[in-house]
């Protein structure tokens, strides 16, 4: 799982929040299936080379939200029926990603047209991966 969780310590978003969002994304996309085990706090912290307390905080929030469940003595799993993201949470996440992308584009001196075209190209790339013909 660590390989598909991209975290960036120099990003403005706190690391625990990046891990939390990353796990949600993996669950939403089906990369992490319902009921599947997730790495222990210790293993994920070692793989990501982050403080275990940071991973523990992300897992705690995901457990509180019903995305993950802890089975005593067994480990942590994706819930069998994880709740869909709430509307406000979804909007917040989408907006956060958009602001990050827009700042990056502005920093690189890209025009709005250029940035929008890259976004459209990224969508096409995702569709191709899923085998969807546009």
């Amino acid at each position, binding site marked *: 799982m660590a390989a598909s969780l991209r*975290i960036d*310590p*120099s*990003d*403005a978003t*706190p*690391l625990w929040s990046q891990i939390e969002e990353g796990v949600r994304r993996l669950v939403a996309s089906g990369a992490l299936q319902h009921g599947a085990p997730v790495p222990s*706090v*210790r293993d994920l*912290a*070692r793989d*990501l*080379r*982050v*403080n*275990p*307390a*940071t991973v523990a905080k992300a897992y705690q929030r995901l457990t509180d939200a019903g995305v993950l469940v802890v089975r005593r003595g067994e480990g942590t799993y994706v819930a069998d029926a994880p709740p869909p993201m709430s509307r406000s949470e979804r909007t917040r996440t989408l907006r956060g990603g958009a602001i990050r992308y827009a*700042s990056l584009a*502005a*920093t690189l001196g890209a025009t709005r047209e250029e940035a929008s075209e890259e976004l459209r190209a990224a969508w096409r790339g995702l569709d191709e991966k899923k085998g969807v013909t546009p």
Partner: protein
Amino acid sequence: MTDPAVSPIRMEAVTIRYGRALACQNVTLSVASGSVYALLGRNGAGKSSLVRCLLGEQRPAAGRAFLFGADSWKTRRRAMARVGIVPEEPDAPPAMSARQLSEFCRRVYPSWDAAGVSARLERFGVPAKTPFGRLSKGQKGQVMLALALGHSPEVLVLDDPTLGLDVVARGVLYEEIVGDLADRGTTVFLTTHDLAGFEAIATHVGILKEGRLILDEEIERLKSRFRRIRYASRLTETRTEFGTELDAFEAARVRVRGWGIDAVVSNFSEAAFDRFRSLDGVEDASAEALSLEEIFLAVAGETPEKADEAKGAGR
């Protein structure tokens, strides 16, 4: 065991002198149990002096350092049973191998975990039978870390632990430290120049500059208040003086570039930035988060007045 009410590490107005030279001046800090405190500073900023003082190897000219609430200069022996140390200059009898060193320590510490030490040496890839004097500098440091954790210390003190390690060995070291944090909740106090490596592991950061602690803060808070703001400045009829648009921010560093202004600010907020970008004459404003290294450069890499301004902004 550790009393949670007592910080395992505390310094009260510590000043260290070597003859007339002042190494540290009036340093006060406290490290809570389970924290990872990264002390940063340029070469000669006083980091190692402060570590030696904390370990009771250097008597402060003024002030006191405490380990588990006890003056470390007066009670060095007693505290050492609860502290693991990786010194800046790894030092051990050159003829003894890592295995012999571990065997020796087993006789000193009743709770010595020889199996754990061997397992660690194996993970590091350090030959257990080679005499210490024939190991590389990086390997010597790894032996020191393997031994430092041998008596399951409550506090781990690391003086520049990645010095001389290649990228693979550094990775193994981070994993070892993270694993120990997960297993035992060890309190760590470290000095380092490897800011990128410890950025995600440290919980608190201190910056020493010319012997003074100019910053001492939780890393998440530190990173939330620093941003690089870039914009093109257009002087207009209502605004003829350059730079006043930044007045709402504490600027740790400002650079004028061909395309506009590049400023590192230490009191960023979304609300203040929204007001800023709508100011008359400010165009194409962007705010970018900074890595720990960039924050360090902005705070400790400039002239003394700038550093003092950055410190004032942190209050």
